[in-house]
C-alpha cells in the first residue's frame, strides 16, 4: 500500500498527542515527519512548574523520548524551526534548509508568552515562562541572584513565583488587580490563596502597574506607575499568552486570534492542513489548557485515520493550581448574576472554602479551596446539567454524603460512580481506571499512568488515582512516596519522622530536630505538638511530656472558649451517673457560680465560663466527689456514647451500656492523633449513632459488629465495617488493637476518617484481622501505654502540679 506523507510542525503536547491517537487507529497509514523548534523529544510542558520547584526532573517529565520516534518509524527533526509552508508544492521548509513534502500537514505551534511592551523589556533577565529554556534561565539566575519579580498573579505567574521561591529567591508578585487569579477565583477564595502563599513568604504588590524595567545590560529594578521601585535580578512576565500564528499567517491561512479551524480540526482555508492546540481558534475560542487540546487531538486523529466520524464541539474547562500543598479547583461561571444563587461554605480556621453557583437547580460554576475532592463531581454535574434539587441541601458536603445510610465499606473515591471523571486533563473516568487496575493487574501509579494516562498530565488528580489504587488492590499497593513535609521547619514527612523516631531511638524533641535537620531552633506550633505526641506514643513509659508543646486546651485541661474562659467536663463512664454524682456536680456549679451548664452530644455535662484561676479548686472538688477529667479538650479518647440496650430497651440484644462502660474504662485518658470517640448501640436501630464514630459497636443477636472510621464533624462520614465478633472480650481486644494501630500509624491531627481514606481499609483490616499475633501485640502495646495515661490530670493539678500555669502574678502598678 502506498503510504501518504504526514508532516507535523510543533513537537509539543497537542501535536504529539495527535500522533499517539493516530498510531492507535491507523499505525501504517502514513510516513510521519515531525519538526520541533526545541532540541528535545516530547515533554510534558505543564510539569515545568514542578521542575522549577525541584519536585521533578526534566527526565521525569519526558513523555516520548527519542526512542519512541524510532520505534514508530517517525522522522524527528528536533531543534529545527519551520519557516515556510509552500502550499502549491505541498512542502515545508526549515531554517536550515530541510525540506519535507506532505500530503497532509498538522500545524501545532502552540503559543508565545505575551511580553508587555515596557521600556527595558529587552534587557537580559526579563523572560516569559514557557519552555525548558526559560526554566533553565530561572534556575541559573536563582543560583546567582536574590530578587525575582513575577508580573502577573494568574495561574502561571503563581506557579513561577512558587518555584523561584523554592529555589531560594525573594519573590514579589505584581498584579494589576486587587485579587489573584481573578479569572478562576472569587474574592474570598483568592484572599485565602493569597494568605497561604504569603505565609510561605511570597510578597504581593496588588494593584500595581509596571511602568519601566531598569538596569544596564541586565535588569536591576522594576519601577511602577506610582513611582515606587523594587530591586529585581529576574523579571518573569506571566501576563498571558497569544496563539503562535506566524507560520499559518505567512502560509495564507485565515487567522483571527488563532488559526481558524472547523469541527474536524481542518483549517478553513486548506483542508489538507490541520491545526490543533493553542495556536488554534475553534468556534471563536482559543484554549490554553491541555484537556481541550487532547480532545482536539482525538478528533484530528480520527479524521486523519479516515474514520471521519468525530467532531470537536468545544470543551468546558476547569482549573487547578499546581503548587504543592495548595488545593484549588475552579470551573464554569463562579461569579453568578441576578438569576443565579450561591451556596457558600467558609471555614477560615481550617482553610476551606466552597462556593457553588446554581441556576434553575443546575450547577453553573464552582470554586473550591482547601478541599477539592468533590471538584470532579461538581464539574460532572455542571457538564451534565443535572437537576440538583433533590440533594441541594447536602450539595456542599460532597458526593459521598449522598445516600450512604447503612453499611458503607467503601471510602469517598470508592463511592464515586464509574462514569465520574477522575483525570480532567485526559478525560479518564473512574471505571476505566478500576478496569485497567484489575484486568492488567496494575500495582503502581506509574503503571496506571502508562495504561490509562490518568494523572499523567498536570497530576492534580494523583491523590484520587492513588486512593483508587489503594482501594482496588488494598495492601499490595506500593504508594509513591508522599513528599509533603510535616511543616515548614523540616523537609521530612510525618511518616519519615515517625519511623525515624523508632529506628534511631530518638527520645527527645531536640534529638528529633537535630537528626532531621530542623530549620528552626524550637519548631513551630505544628511540629512541636506533633513531635510531642509522636514521642509520647513511641515511648509511653519513658518520654516526659512537654506542656509548652501542647495546645492551651490540653495544657490547661479545659476547653478555651471565645472570651478566654474555660469549660469543664467530668467523665461519666458510658454516660452513666447516680443521683449523688448529679448532686455533686450541682454543688460544684453553685459554689463556682457556673453561668452555663449543658448536656453534650456525648452524654456528659459541660460547665462553661470558668476562669482559669478557678480550675484547680473546682477540679479538687470534683475529684473529691469521684470524678476524673473527661478529656473533652484533648486530642484524646473523649466519650463512649451508649444506648440503654438489653437492660431496659425492648429491642436490646446485648448490654450496650455495660459494654460502653468497659470500653471507656479500657480507653480513657489515651492520647490520640486527634479527638476520638466511641459508641455502643444495643441493636441495629443504632440509637447511640455508632456508625459515625471513630469506633462504633452495634450489638446484634449473634454478637457485635465493629465499625471504624466514622466522623460526625464538618464532613460526615459513615463507618466502614471492620468485622463481627462473638464476645465482649473480643470487642475489647479488637478495639484496643485498632486504637493502637491508629495511634502508631496516623499523622498527628488526622482523624480516623481521612486516615483510613489515605491508607486504605485493607491495610487496617490486614493489621487487625488477618494477623492475630499482630493484633495481640498491638493490644498489648495499647495496654502498656494506658498505664501511665490513666492518671487523672485534674487530680494532679488540684494537688499542685503545674501551679504556675494557673496562678497569675498580681502586682500593684
Amino acid at each position, binding site marked *: 500500500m502506498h503510504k501518504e506523507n504526514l508532516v507535523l510542525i510543533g513537537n509539543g503536547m497537542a501535536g504529539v498527542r495527535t500522533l499517539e491517537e493516530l498510531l492507535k487507529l491507523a499505525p501504517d497509514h502514513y510516513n510521519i515527519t515531525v519538526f520541533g523548534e526545541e532540541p528535545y523529544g516530547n515533554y510534558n510542558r505543564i510539569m515545568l512548574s514542578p521542575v522549577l520547584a525541584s519536585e521533578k526532573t526534566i527526565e521525569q517529565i519526558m513523555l516520548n523520548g527519542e526512542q519512541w520516534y524510532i520505534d514508530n518509524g517517525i522522522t524527528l527533526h528536533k531543534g529545527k524551526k519551520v519557516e515556510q509552508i509552500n502550499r502549491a508544492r505541498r512542502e515545508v521548509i526549515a531554517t536550515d534548509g530541510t525540506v519535507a513534502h506532505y500530503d497532509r500537514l498538522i500545524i501545532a505551534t502552540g503559543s508565545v508568552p505575551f511580553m508587555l511592551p515596557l521600556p527595558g523589556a529587552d534587557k537580559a533577565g526579563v523572560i516569559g515562562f514557557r519552555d525548558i529554556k526559560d526554566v533553565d534561565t530561572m534556575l541559573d539566575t536563582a543560583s546567582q541572584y536574590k530578587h525575582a519579580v513575577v508580573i502577573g498573579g494568574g495561574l502561571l505567574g503563581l506557579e513561577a513565583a512558587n518555584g523561584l521561591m523554592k529555589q531560594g529567591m525573594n519573590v514579589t508578585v505584581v498584579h494589576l488587580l486587587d485579587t489573584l487569579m481573578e479569572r478562576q477565583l472569587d474574592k474570598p477564595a483568592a484572599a485565602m490563596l493569597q494568605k497561604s502563599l504569603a*505565609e510561605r513568604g511570597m510578597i504581593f504588590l496588588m494593584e500595581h502597574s509596571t511602568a519601566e524595567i531598569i538596569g544596564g545590560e541586565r535588569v536591576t529594578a522594576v519601577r511602577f506607575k506610582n513611582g515606587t521601585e523594587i530591586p529585581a535580578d529576574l523579571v518573569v512576565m506571566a501576563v498571558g499568552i497569544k496563539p503562535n500564528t506566524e507560520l499559518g499567517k505567512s502560509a495564507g491561512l485565515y487567522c483571527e486570534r488563532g488559526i481558524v479551524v472547523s469541527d474536524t480540526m481542518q483549517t478553513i482555508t486548506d483542508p489538507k492542513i490541520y491545526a490543533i492546540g493553542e495556536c488554534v481558534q475553534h468556534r471563536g475560542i482559543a484554549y490554553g489548557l491541555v484537556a481541550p487540546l487532547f480532545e482536539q487531538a482525538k478528533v484530528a486523529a480520527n479524521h486523519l485515520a479516515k474514520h471521519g466520524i468525530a467532531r470537536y464541539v468545544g470543551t468546558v474547562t476547569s482549573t487547578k493550581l499546581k503548587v504543592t500543598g495548595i488545593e484549588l479547583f475552579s470551573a464554569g461561571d463562579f461569579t453568578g448574576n441576578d438569576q443565579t444563587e450561591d451556596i457558600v461554605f467558609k471555614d477560615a480556621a481550617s482553610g476551606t472554602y466552597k462556593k457553588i453557583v446554581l441556576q434553575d437547580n443546575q450547577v453553573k460554576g464552582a470554586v473550591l479551596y482547601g478541599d477539592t475532592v468533590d471538584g470532579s463531581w461538581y464539574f460532572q454535574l455542571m457538564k451534565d446539567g443535572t437537576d440538583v434539587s433533590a440533594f441541594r441541601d447536602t450539595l456542599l458536603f460532597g458526593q459521598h454524603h449522598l445516600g450512604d445510610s447503612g453499611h458503607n465499606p467503601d471510602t469517598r473515591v470508592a463511592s464515586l460512580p464509574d462514569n465520574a471523571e477522575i483525570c480532567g486533563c485526559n478525560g479518564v473516568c473512574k471505571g476505566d481506571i478500576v478496569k485497567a487496575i484489575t484486568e492488567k493487574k496494575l500495582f503502581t501509579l506509574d503503571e496506571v499512568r502508562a495504561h490509562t494516562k490518568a494523572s499523567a498530565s498536570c497530576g492534580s488528580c494523583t491523590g484520587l488515582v492513588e486512593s483508587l489504587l489503594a482501594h482496588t488492590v488494598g495492601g499490595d499497593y506500593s504508594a509513591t512516596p508522599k513528599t509533603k513535609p510535616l511543616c515548614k521547619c523540616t523537609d521530612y514527612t510525618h511518616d519519615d519522622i515517625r519511623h525515624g523516631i523508632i529506628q534511631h531511638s530518638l527520645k527527645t524533641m531536640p534529638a528529633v530536630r537535630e537528626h532531621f535537620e530542623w530549620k528552626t531552633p524550637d519548631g513551630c506550633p505544628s511540629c*512541636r505538638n506533633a513531635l510531642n505526641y509522636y514521642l509520647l506514643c513511641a515511648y509511653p513509659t519513658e518520654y516526659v511530656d512537654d506542656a509548652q*508543646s501542647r495546645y492551651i486546651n490540653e495544657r490547661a485541661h479545659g476547653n478555651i472558649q471565645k472570651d*478566654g474562659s474555660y469549660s469543664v467536663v467530668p467523665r461519666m463512664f458510658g454516660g452513666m451517673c447516680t443521683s449523688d454524682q448529679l448532686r455533686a456536680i450541682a454543688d460544684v456549679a453553685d459554689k463556682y457560680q457556673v453561668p452555663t451548664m449543658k448536656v453534650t452530644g456525648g452524654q456528659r455535662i459541660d460547665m462553661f465560663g470558668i476562669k482559669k484561676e478557678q480550675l484547680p479548686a473546682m477540679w479538687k472538688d470534683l475529684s473529691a466527689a469521684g470524678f476524673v477529667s473527661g478529656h473533652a479538650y484533648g486530642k484524646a479518647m473523649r466519650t463512649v456514647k451508649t444506648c440503654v440496650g438489653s437492660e431496659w430497651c425492648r429491642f436490646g440484644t446485648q448490654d450496650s451500656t455495660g459494654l460502653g462502660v468497659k470500653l471507656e474504662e479500657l480507653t480513657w485518658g489515651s492520647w490520640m492523633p486527634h479527638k476520638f470517640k466511641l459508641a455502643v448501640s444495643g441493636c441495629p436501630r443504632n440509637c447511640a449513632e455508632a456508625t459515625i464514630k471513630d469506633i462504633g459497636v452495634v450489638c446484634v443477636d449473634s454478637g457485635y459488629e465493629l465499625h471504624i472510621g466514622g466522623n460526625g464533624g464538618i464532613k460526615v462520614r459513615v463507618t466502614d465495617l471492620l468485622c463481627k465478633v462473638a464476645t465482649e472480650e473480643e470487642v475489647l481486644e479488637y478495639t484496643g488493637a485498632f486504637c493502637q494501630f491508629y495511634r502508631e500509624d496516623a499523622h498527628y491531627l488526622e482523624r480516623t476518617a481521612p486516615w483510613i481514606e489515605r491508607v486504605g481499609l485493607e491495610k487496617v483490616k490486614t493489621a487487625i484481622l488477618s494477623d492475630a499475633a499482630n493484633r495481640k501485640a498491638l493490644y498489648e502495646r495499647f495496654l502498656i501505654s494506658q498505664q501511665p495515661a490513666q492518671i487523672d490530670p485534674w487530680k494532679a493539678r488540684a494537688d499542685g502540679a503545674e501551679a504556675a500555669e494557673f496562678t497569675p502574678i498580681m502586682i500593684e*502598678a
Partner: protein
Amino acid sequence: MSKWIEVVELNNIPVLGSRLIKTRDTDIAVFRGSDDQVYAIRDACPHKGGPLSQGIMHGSTVTCPLHNWKIDLGSGNALAPDHGCGNVFAVKVEGGKVFLQL
C-alpha cells in the same frame, strides 16, 4: 514617670512559655524564649482580644490560641498576612529577676 518594677523570677517562667501578670489596669503576658530572652506584651491579641499568654511560643513569636494569628513578641506586630499590633512593654532581666517598665 514610668519605672521598672520587679515582677517574677526568670526561673518561674517556663521555657517557651509564659506567666500572666495582672496589674490594676491591664493583664500582661511575660514570655521566656529558649535563649532566655524575655518579652512582655499586653495579654490581648490585636485580632479579637485572645489571651496571648495561653498561646504557643516559638522563636520570638506567639501563636494566639483563639484563631492562630502569629504575633511578633519583639515589636507586637501581627505577622503577615495579618495586620495589627499589640502593646509591648519594656522588659529586662537582672540578677535572675524580671523587671517591667510600667
